[in-house]
């Protein structure tokens, strides 16, 4: 069984359980903080289930800056109200800590600016599960790249509890949806020692790469666009654990190595500083 099918069947199972009222549909907060909001955009790209299906059948997404119709204090009240319920906190972006978090203000409530740092501490304490979506939330990522001007940190560095990490820049929609489905119907998925679900992050890209045969035969590309393994161009597939080669992206049509370019290790804990240069000739 491929992982894609596993992820999809998980979701079907979760929805089935919700429909049969064996499991309560959980509330969820998706907080965009110091990052590019690319993980929520990637989430919108989810296919079968699409966004409408996820929102109507899988979770009650009570707060998200990109999607919600309400604005201002009215919107932030939704955030506060959710804290008194059973909910999943999803964080998209790193947590800016400079100036007590004042480099990232996410709302103004009753005349007081609310920093992302404060919001994550507030919600992180009360959430049933905390999920770091993307590399910034998981490890600091590009937001924390040298010299880290905003003092950005990963979510688990600012709250004292377990954080499920879904790295990737962006996070593949299946990795989030599959994890949500697992949380809703089966509880916490099996995680590796870094907090990543084994279901999606079990093996390196190199292990299942579509160009692995070239590596084994010692055929190497000298520039982008050539046939051959791109190891000598600085491909980070050997140190990056995701299922990109088998899962593929955006309707499962392609992936970076399929576009004749290196894996740049975007789901790796040391991305980007430890993964550069992205290409070397």
């Amino acid at each position, binding site marked *: 069984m491929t992982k894609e099918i596993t992820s999809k069947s998980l979701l079907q199972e979760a929805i089935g359980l919700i429909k049969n009222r064996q499991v309560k549909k959980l509330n969820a907060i998706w907080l965009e903080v110091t990052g590019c909001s690319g*993980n929520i955009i990637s989430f*919108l790209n989810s296919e079968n289930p699409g966004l*409408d299906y996820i929102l109507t059948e899988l979770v009650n997404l009570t707060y998200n800056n990109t999607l919600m119709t309400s604005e201002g204090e009215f919107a932030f009240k939704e955030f506060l109200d959710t804290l008194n319920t059973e909910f999943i906190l999803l964080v998209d972006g790193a947590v800016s800590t400079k*100036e007590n978090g004042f480099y990232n203000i996410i709302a103004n409530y009753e005349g007081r600016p609310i920093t992302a740092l404060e919001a994550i501490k507030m919600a992180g304490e009360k959430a049933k599960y905390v999920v770091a979506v993307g590399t910034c939330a998981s490890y600091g990522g590009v937001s924390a790249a040298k010299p880290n001007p905003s003092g950005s940190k990963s979510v688990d560095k600012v709250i004292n509890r377990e954080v499920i990490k879904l790295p990737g820049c962006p996070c593949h929609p299946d990795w989030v949806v599959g994890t949500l489905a697992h949380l809703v119907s089966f509880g916490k998925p099996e995680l590796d020692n870094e907090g990543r679900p084994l279901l999606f992050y079990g093996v390196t890209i190199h292990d299942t790469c579509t160009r692995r045969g070239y590596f084994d035969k010692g055929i190497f590309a000298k520039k982008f666009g050539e046939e051959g393994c791109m190891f000598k161009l600085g491909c980070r597939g050997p140190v990056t654990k995701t299922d990109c080669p088998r899962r593929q992206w955006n309707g499962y049509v392609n992936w970076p190595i399929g*576009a004749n370019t290196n894996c740049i290790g975007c789901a790796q804990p040391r991305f980007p500083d430890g993964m*550069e240069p992205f290409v070397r000739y």
Partner: protein
Amino acid sequence: MRKTIRIDPITRISGFLETKVEVEKNTIVNAETSGLLFRGFEKMLKSRQPLDAIYFTERICGICSAAHALASTAALENALKVEVSINDLYVRDLMHGFELMQNHLRHFYNLTIPSYVKMPDIKPLYSEQYSDYRLPEEINKKISEHYITSIQHSRLAHEGLAVLGGKAPHAHGIFVGGVTVNMDAYKLSKVRAIIYILKQFINDYMIEDVYTISKYYSDYFEKGKAYGNFMSYGLFDKYPDPEITYVKPSVLINGKKSSLDGNKITENILHTWYVNNKETEKPTEDTEDSINLSKEGAYSFIKSPHYDGYSMEVGPLARLILAGEYTRGISCMDRNIARVLETKKIIGIMENLSNRIQLVSTNQKIYDIPDQAFGVGLVDTTRGALGHWVKIENKLIKYYNIITPTVWNMSPKDGAGKSGVGEKSLIGTKINNIKEPVEVGRIIRSFDPCISCATHLVSDEHEPIDIQVLI
């Protein structure tokens, strides 16, 4: 009596924007837009490998990352003196086109529509905050159904980008020298099929939906007018062929149109939290700012850019006006309509581009980085004019400057105290019901602001900083 209204967060935009307006006799008399996110990309880029800037700067923005790849690649090609083949330009423009489609579809349906159409009872779409929903029930139902349908189409636009560029967001396929894809008949037919489906949706639903909304909210043709000075760095402008051409690099100032001169671009930091010995900076120079959150008169992380001393509006309306294809007006509703009309325009250009693409392999080479070089990449993208400036020294990035479209549209007051474009568009606007100031968000969203993009700058040499002024 003067009343202050503060809206934070302005949701359904990318990033964090606070808008504060002062209202007197139901009319906005003063407005301040504040970018409330600081990341520091230009500081991070120093001393990195020049070619890494392409994938690195994509991470500025999750919704328009290919645009940053395009601007960064253009700046590097300028610095490295690399020429791109016409076929690669076609493929690259097609990738950019898919990103524009993804953006415009998402902005119109997911970000704009919920301000005008009562959403179904799905969290977080349903809201009881405002009551000013004017569409008859049947029409309201129809357009809210199109919201749901559009999710598949914006997703499909990203699929088109991924076919050519590996994945989206943060595609890999745009690179120095052109593109990395080896074009074949299957890929070409795949992207053509996607273009076909998108075109149908745009023609059959999107155009009608924006005109329907404009009919029921016709007062928005009078709200949200800014200075009327427009700028574009050029979009689909590299070809002599009119069927694949849209708008040339140009400006319209005080009603007079002229071609663009990139040397006339400056940025002012007076009303920002940035500190520098110079108040006005040039993007061609190394501008190392520090941050002071207690700086007097400062209220934003977004700088105030000028072209020849003028605040310029950028985006779809600017482009259509500069291309001579739109004359109705410069209001909030004109911006919404222009975005949709442009979506139709660009899908047509994409179709024509796809018909010209040859099945040839990529022209990628081994690129040597010069010891010293300077490059400029000026491109127009979803939200307007995007500029990347790169200085290379000792084969590494010495400094890197970026001015994004939202910096142009959502800047604070300039050195002379003149309002930014977004602020100007709010001032003078009548608030119909002071208890429900729905106008502010509608007008701001008509610019499609992206704060992740706009507030990416600078360093912080001087700390600690007193933050009491904010609390």
